[in-house]
């Protein structure tokens, strides 16, 4: 036996030394002051250290986990050269079927197309002629789109300034984003979800707008289901606000006043004529408020307005006159002392004058002195040559008209065109803060997403909960460890000392493996560590009980140890392999935190076979071979 021990010592020595080496960076990092970290960050050494330490999961350090799904149906509608209702309904149908039956979207789409006998080549002639060709190309297009989305989001997040963001594709149409230590989750969400579709629409003039509003009132009058919405009916503000609009100083107030006063009177008149049921008489205009220069919608009416705009009689009238209503991006009080907040409502052309990837450069600034936007956050845009040409043509042809600058279907501003703008420069205003402007500049620089994305899963852990979890988790690990050690020492005496030694090494080696695998330690991972303590001591219990049994049969300590280990080993392997299977399945199926649990459990059990069997055996052998023992402390 003596001869066999030297290689054993060597193996154990190497592994223990490696474990210490692997854990050194983590130890260093934990004991580093914040100043020292900053110092090392500037020299770039911190990155090196950080790549070797045990990473903490989002549930421990706080942060955001978001799963985004590309909106393939919308992508398909956008790709179609003709988008009529028939195509839209087929696509919508296919989406519903794919959700309810768990089918692949394209499979459902194909079935629907065949079933409804739709000629896809009518819509997608650029993508081939046969059904299969088109579907194949469209699927490729969707794959390509999600890859571009991934790249663009990567770009946006890189500029957002969080440490170690991870962005990964999951399956075919999903992207998982993990952002550590995010304080402002709304901001992060907006940054990720914004399609960044920048469009410029001409605003229809006020007479046309008023005409449309009264048409819609007529169309909606008498619809009996409107009363459902009337809970949010509007009271017209009695005061007429004369404060000039900050949004657009160039439009003369008096020019608009005539019309908006009419509107005001109309609505007020309606209010007085039929105070009991005003909503039914002028369902649309009753949601609106006239303000100088524009029409506004009070916050509480927005939901009702959106519902009205989706009604078929409204949609068809808007379609006939080739117009659409868009809301402003920001919610503002009409005056400083007013508690009510409003969105502006714009009636614009159906088709944009200028759209898409025309942005060359975007920069957030504070508006220069003397301009209308002095001191406000603005984003300055430079367009590429195509964009510049169109922009100069559009502005040249529409002097005096208003143009709405629209991002993701929200109007940022709608200034009047004073002169032809050559050189493709423009400025966007209407931000609540410089941060918002900066984020928009980031988004515009990174480019528009080829397909809209929806957030389908989102988990945020606040920094304080994460800190609590670490504290409580560590506490539980130490307490559990101490309790088990005491019990084992008490119960097995000297053998217990050996087992305790092995158990501590078990935990250290697991941590070392986590550090070198760059695995993430999550709260369930800590639970896994505690469970490992409980379960890895089992191997020693099995061995020791067996040795005791052999001793009772009258065997000498040496033979008792030999046969105890030999008999116990198959039991231990069989018992542990099954738990390993469970942990592998868990790893396969789990996400984030659960994966962390499975990782720890897997390595914990695997390593326990080394520490609880191999290391303890070596120590026992060394102990037994040194002297002729007549009894064993077990």
């Amino acid at each position: 036996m003596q001869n066999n021990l030297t290689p054993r010592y060597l193996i154990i020595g190497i592994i223990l030394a490696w474990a210490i080496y692997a854990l050194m960076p983590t130890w260093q990092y934990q004991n580093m002051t914040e100043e020292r970290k900053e110092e090392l960050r500037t020299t770039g050494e911190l990155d090196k250290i950080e790549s070797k330490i045990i990473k903490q999961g989002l549930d421990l350090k706080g942060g955001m986990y978001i799963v985004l799904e590309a909106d393939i149906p919308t992508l398909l509608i956008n790709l179609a050269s003709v988008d009529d209702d028939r195509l839209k309904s087929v696509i919508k149908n296919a989406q519903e079927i794919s959700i309810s039956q768990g089918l692949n979207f394209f499979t459902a789409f194909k079935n629907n197309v065949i079933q409804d006998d739709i000629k896809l080549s009518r819509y997608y002639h650029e993508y081939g002629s046969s059904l299969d060709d088109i579907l194949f190309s469209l699927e490729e297009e969707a794959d390509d789109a999600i890859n571009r989305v991934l790249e663009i989001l990567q770009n946006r997040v890189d500029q957002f300034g969080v440490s170690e963001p991870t962005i990964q594709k999951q399956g075919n149409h999903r992207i998982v984003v993990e952002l550590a230590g995010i304080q402002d989750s709304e901001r992060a969400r907006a940054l990720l979800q914004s399609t960044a579709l920048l469009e410029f629409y001409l605003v229809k003039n006020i007479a046309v707008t008023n005409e449309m509003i009264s048409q819609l009132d007529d169309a909606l009058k008498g619809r009996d289901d409107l009363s459902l919405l009337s809970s949010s009916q509007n009271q017209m503000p009695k005061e007429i606000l004369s404060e000039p609009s900050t949004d657009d100083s160039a439009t003369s107030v008096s020019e608009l006043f005539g019309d908006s006063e009419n509107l005001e009177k109309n609505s007020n008149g309606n209010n007085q004529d039929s105070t009991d049921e005003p909503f039914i008489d002028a369902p649309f205009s009753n949601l609106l408020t006239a303000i100088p220069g524009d029409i506004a919608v009070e916050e509480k009416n927005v939901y009702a307005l959106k519902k009205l705009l989706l009604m078929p009689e409204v949609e068809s009238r808007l379609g006939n006159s080739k117009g659409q209503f868009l809301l402003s991006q920001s919610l503002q009080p009409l005056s400083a002392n007013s508690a009510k907040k409003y969105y502006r409502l714009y009636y614009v052309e159906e088709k944009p004058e200028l759209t898409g990837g025309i942005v060359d450069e975007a920069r957030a600034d504070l508006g220069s002195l003397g301009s209308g936007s002095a001191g406000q956050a603005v984003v300055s845009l430079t367009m590429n040559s195509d964009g510049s040409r169109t922009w100069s043509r559009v502005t040249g042809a529409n002097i005096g008209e208003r143009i709405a600058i629209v991002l993701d279907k929200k109007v940022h501003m709608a200034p009047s065109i004073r002169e032809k703008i050559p050189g493709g420069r423009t400025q966007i205003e209407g931000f609540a803060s410089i941060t918002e402007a900066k984020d928009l500049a980031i988004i515009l620089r990174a480019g528009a997403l080829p397909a809209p994305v929806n957030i389908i899963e989102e988990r945020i852990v606040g920094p304080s909960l994460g800190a609590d979890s670490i504290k409580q988790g560590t506490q539980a690990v130490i307490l559990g460890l101490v309790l088990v050690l005491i019990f084992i020492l008490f119960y097995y005496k000297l053998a217990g000392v050996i087992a305790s030694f092995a158990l501590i090494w078990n935990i250290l080696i697991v941590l070392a493996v986590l550090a070198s695998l760059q695995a993430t330690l999550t709260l369930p991972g800590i639970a896994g560590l505690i469970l490992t303590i409980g379960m890895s001591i089992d191997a020693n219990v099995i061995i020791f009980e067996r040795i005791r049994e052999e001793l009772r049969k009258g065997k000498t300590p040496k033979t008792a140890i030999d046969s105890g280990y030999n008999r116990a080993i198959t039991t231990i392997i069989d018992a542990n392999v099954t738990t390993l299977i469970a942990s592998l399945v868990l790893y396969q199926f789990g996400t984030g935190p659960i994966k962390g649990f499975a990782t720890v459990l897997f390595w914990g059990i695997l390593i326990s076979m080394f520490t609880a069997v191999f290391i303890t055996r070596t120590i026992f052998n060394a102990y037994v071979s040194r002297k002729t023992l007549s009894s064993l402390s077990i």
Partner: protein
Amino acid sequence: MRIIKKTNIDFIGKTNSAAVLSTVLIFAGVLSMILNSGPKLSIDFKGGTFIAVNYTDPVDIETIRSELSSISIDGQTFDFGNAEIKYFGDESNIAVRISSIEDEPKQFSKKFTDILANIFPDKVPTDRSNFILSVEKVGPKVGAELSSDAIMAMLSALVLILIYVSIRFEFKYALGAIAALTHDVLITLGVFSILGYEVSLAVIAAFLTIVGYSLNDTIVIFDRVRENAKALKNIHIKDVINQSINESLSRTIITSLTTFFVVLILFLFGGEVIHTFSFAMIVGVLIGTYSSIFVASPVVIKMASK
């Protein structure tokens, strides 16, 4: 020191009483699940929003409930009076669970936490970023997928284990092991249903660990049975099993105790986030130990006597 001296308990003789106990436990759990139309699922599987916030002082749940019974977000009115509102850890932390909302307003979770903050404005931490403890939002589609994933995970773990045990032992042992595992998961699920605890992703992880743990116990006994069966060829399987259980009893009890200690500590000190996880583990350790003696082995005897 020895807690368990050499024993000679007739475990197999007590199979019938154990069967009654198991049946009662399983029946109670299943009945509770039928009455509540299935186990209580967390938003991981149902979809919905979970928001936990942290006030600086204890707050009253009923006040929050009445405030939430009529709130307006972007002109859309909601009644969350029936939402599940609970203390989260201590009485100054509140957790609200809301099921999926069709056509949800933009920035819903932000607006909702603002509403929660406005109920007790003077109890909101000065640093607002400390107010939100956790927000989880799972879309209905993801929920459905996670459910089928979880079921697949449980089934594939069971099948893989069945295969492994059949190879290492015999098929009848595999059946015994699977019977014990199903028994454990059913009872733990039942306990969750009776106590009204939610089954979340973490609880499924606990279930899989219970499967691993319970099996661990079962296999240690089976291993002894296999060994003894070779040595004691002429003795009835029933007696072989009984002797094996007795021989490995001290190990079973010591390991169960140590594991029980650590999961108990996890339950008591591990914090709110893994509370249900560790609770599932506690139930699992107890039931797993019991089932390896009183379920797995009797099934093997039944199969052997056929």
